[in-house]
Each structure stands twice: as structure tokens, then as C-alpha cells.
């Protein structure tokens, strides 16, 4: 009986290296930066459009 299953458990727990976390963090930073980028692009495009039409 002497269970020593425990090794398997320890290995699996160690495997369950969750450190997923960095993917989630990367998603978050992407979300932030790409959103800011998109906002800037929206602003730039609309200003450019107005200037172009005025130029016409």
C-alpha cells in the first residue's frame, strides 16, 4: 500500500507551469495598445478626410 500516486500527483501539479497567465497578460496589453492605435487611426483618418475635401 505504501501511495508513493503521490509522485504522479506532484508531477502533474508541477506541470499544471498556469504560468496561461502570460498569454492573458499579452492579450490584455494587445487589447490596450491596439485600441489606442485604432483610436489614433480614426482621428488621423477623419482629419485627413476633412483636409482633403477642403483641398478639393
Amino acid at each position, binding site marked *: 500500500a*505504501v*501511495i*508513493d500516486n*503521490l*509522485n504522479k*500527483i*506532484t508531477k502533474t*501539479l*508541477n506541470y*499544471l507551469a*498556469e504560468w*496561461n*497567465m502570460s498569454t*492573458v*497578460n499579452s*492579450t*490584455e496589453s494587445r*487589447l*490596450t495598445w491596439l*485600441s489606442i492605435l*485604432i*483610436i489614433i487611426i*480614426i*482621428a488621423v483618418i*477623419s482629419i485627413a*478626410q*476633412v483636409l482633403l*475635401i*477642403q483641398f478639393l
Partner: protein
Amino acid sequence: AVNVLNSKIGIREQKLMDEATFDASEAVNSRAMWWIVIQLIVLAVTCGWQMKHLGKFFVK
């Protein structure tokens, strides 16, 4: 010398597995929505500004 098993199971690693920070997921979840809402607001504002500005311009 069950004692070895005891120290091994003392696995109880589980406490470390403090998952709680992995908060990150929920933050992303809410931000995913808010960022897009902000983008849409910016889009609407610029759209309004464009129309107003061009209207004034044409009159002038």
C-alpha cells in the same frame, strides 16, 4: 520511516496554486468590451465633428 509519504503529501503546492491573480482574466474580460465601446464613442465623435466642420466649411 510513512513519514516520507507524509512529508511528500505535505503537495498541500496546492496553497500556492494564490489562481486568484490569474483577476487578470476578469480584467481582460471587462476591458475587451470597454475598449471597443470607447473606440465606437471616438468614432461617433469624430464623425459628428467631420460633418459639422464640413457643413460650416461649405457655408463659408
